[in-house]
């Protein structure tokens, strides 16, 4: 059950931005039952959560590694810190930050204050004041926007009602891992009929300790509400941990609308294996906007289960893979109710030996009459070293439905390049314009600051690729 608005307004001190840590305890690397118990103890969690974590750990051990997708052979599960407290998280000095990263910050116009934070040079980003003011206006509407750790403590019943109902621990090996060692993430509850105009940004919630290793996010949009949540940023983001395995669960109730935008540009040492899924009830709309720009390997397939009549899913995905990167992304939509619709648009760019793969599923259950689905995947291959794959699956069990899928893979059109060059642009400028135009349908939906950064990022990436 949700807490009443009155309760929350009466006790503002319960909603402090920072969480309190217990003793300083240095945890070794590796995964074990003891470490999971210690994580739970450090967070002071209720018994049911500890039991849940331990059960998930067993599930993790029992499942084999997936035989499909990217190359995960480089993951050394025993050589990872599964929980780092801010006080002992290893950080680098500003001098150690590679020059390209510093240059990127310049080019993208990242404010001075954010650079050190993004580069992993520690020092908490001073977003507290911004957060507090935002927080008050939200609380007045009855909205909950907390870190997942805090939410478990403050809203135990609401939490327990929805936690792990969309992605259970046994869903897949990495969901099991996250379920065992999760920490951080956002918990959002929007009450009936409340519309949040300003996008909620994960950014505001990030303390130094929550650099998103095993984040667990849970968003519940009650009937008729709407919210837009954004996480990540276009700037290359350093993380000391090489394995990121987040879980995001979203419940969109009758008539509600949720948009979840992710822009990920993790540094090239990171395995980013994420399970994201939303359930959309009657007349609800779920919109995933997923931009994958970084990491060594990303495997992420935002999914929507359309379980109520007339529910809608829209998934837009951009993937950019450069040297040494593999973006294995896509979308999954399950139509399990009548008159449901889904649109999946995927744009990917491979350059410098990078590899992008689109992996998707459209499934129409028997009885999901009147369902419509359209999938468009376009890929740009910028040179001979790169690779692009498309692995879509369509499973149609209902004849009263209409499904369409199309995909193209090509390089930048010679004709278009020539046209622009004959009008005075250099080859590099022309190519950049064409690549920006290629992803424009998706970028134009991003909030402006992100769109601007995205375009600049493409510009930078393109400079290297045309000889």
């Amino acid at each position: 059950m949700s807490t009443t608005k009155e309760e929350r307004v009466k006790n503002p001190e319960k909603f402090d931005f920072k969480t309190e840590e217990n003793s300083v305890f240095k945890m070794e690397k590796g995964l074990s039952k003891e470490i999971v118990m210690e994580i739970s103890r450090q967070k002071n969690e209720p018994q049911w959560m500890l039991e849940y974590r331990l059960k998930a750990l067993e599930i993790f051990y029992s499942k084999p590694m997936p035989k499909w997708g990217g190359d995960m052979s480089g993951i050394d599960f025993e050589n990872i810190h599964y929980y780092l407290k801010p006080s002992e998280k290893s950080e680098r000095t500003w001098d150690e930050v590679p020059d390209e990263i510093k240059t990127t910050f310049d080019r993208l116009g990242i404010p001075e204050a954010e650079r050190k934070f993004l580069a992993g040079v520690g020092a908490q980003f001073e977003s507290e004041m911004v957060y507090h003011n935002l927080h008050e206006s939200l609380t007045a509407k009855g909205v909950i926007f907390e870190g997942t750790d805090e939410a478990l403590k403050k809203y135990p019943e609401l939490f327990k009602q929805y936690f792990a109902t969309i992605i259970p621990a046994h869903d897949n090996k990495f969901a099991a891992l996250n379920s065992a060692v999760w920490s951080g993430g956002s918990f959002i509850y929007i009450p009936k009929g409340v519309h949040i105009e300003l996008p909620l940004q994960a950014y505001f919630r990030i303390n130094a300790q929550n650099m998103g290793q095993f984040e667990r996010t849970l968003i519940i949009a009650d009937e008729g509400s709407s919210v837009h949540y954004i996480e990540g940023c276009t700037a290359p983001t350093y993380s000391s941990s090489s394995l990121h395995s987040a879980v995001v669960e979203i419940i969109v109730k009758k008539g509600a609308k949720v948009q979840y935008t992710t822009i990920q540009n993790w540094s090239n040492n990171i395995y980013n294996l994420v399970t994201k899924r939303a359930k959309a009830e009657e007349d609800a709309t779920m919109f995933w906007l997923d931009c994958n720009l970084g990491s060594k390997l990303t495997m992420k397939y935002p999914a929507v289960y359309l379980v109520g009549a007339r529910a809608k899913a829209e998934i837009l995905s951009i993937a950019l893979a450069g040297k040494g990167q593999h973006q294995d992304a896509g979308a999954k939509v399950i139509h399990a109710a009548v008159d449901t619709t889904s649109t999946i648009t995927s744009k990917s760019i491979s350059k410098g030996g990078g590899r992008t793969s689109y992996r998707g599923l459209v499934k129409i259950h028997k009885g999901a009459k009147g369902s419509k689905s359209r999938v468009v995947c376009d890929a740009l291959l910028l040179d001979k070293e790169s690779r692009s794959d498309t692995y879509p699956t369509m499973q149609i069990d209902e004849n009263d439905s209409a499904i369409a899928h199309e995909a193209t893979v090509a390089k930048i059109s010679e004709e278009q390049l020539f046209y622009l060059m004959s009008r005075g642009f250099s080859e590099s400028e022309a190519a950049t314009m064409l690549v920006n135009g290629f992803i424009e349908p998706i970028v134009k939906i991003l909030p402006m600051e992100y769109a601007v950064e995205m375009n600049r990022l493409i510009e930078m990436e393109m400079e290297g690729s045309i000889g």
Partner: protein
Amino acid sequence: MYIPTLTHIDQGYRFESVLPPEVKFEDGQKETLVTEKLEDSKIIVEAGCKATLIAVLTEGTQPSTDPLLASKAADIQIEFGGRGAELVMLVFIVGREKDRFHFKTTSRHGVQGTKASYFVKGTMFEQSSADYHGNLIIEKGADETDVYLAHHTLLLGPAAKANTFPGLEIEADEVKAGHAATVGRVDEEVLFYLQARGFEKQEAEQLLVRGFFEDLLMKIANESLRDDLREKILARLP
């Protein structure tokens, strides 16, 4: 007598009831192979050959209690020997009762300058189903490859099903590659149009189902072959 190797002389066509395990299109000729049943096969199209492979599938496998038999797909591997090799593959499927059609094509392009297009169209009635995995693979260095794959299905029975898995793996950039798939019923608007012109709904549907295959049939140059295939399809339609 001098016979030019890149020829417009239609060699007529070769008919094999079942797709042979090995098929070679060679000698720079233009050749058509027609079959009624797909089985595991390795197909090679040599340089300069324009090959056409036509499959009219009107008898699927029947449901089996043996899980291995029930899920077995005919695995067709296609390779290209050199520049100028081209393949057009046309597959017509009419599924009735409990017919099941399950096949896979893997088009592997390792040399430059080849073309391949795969057009699969199916009308699935009653409880029939079709599973088609169509893979287009372009290896590094195989520039000037032009490939396309399309799988279109009309679901016309209450328990009819279709599963389609078009795949692309592209490692060369000077290529054209695309695929498309649609699954659905007969277009309501078009049905209405015909009814408004005096056709009964059932007649209209029949006309549209027949028309569904026409664009693929028109890709066949040999008129008598085209007529034979059309008859075979019509005979199986309800």
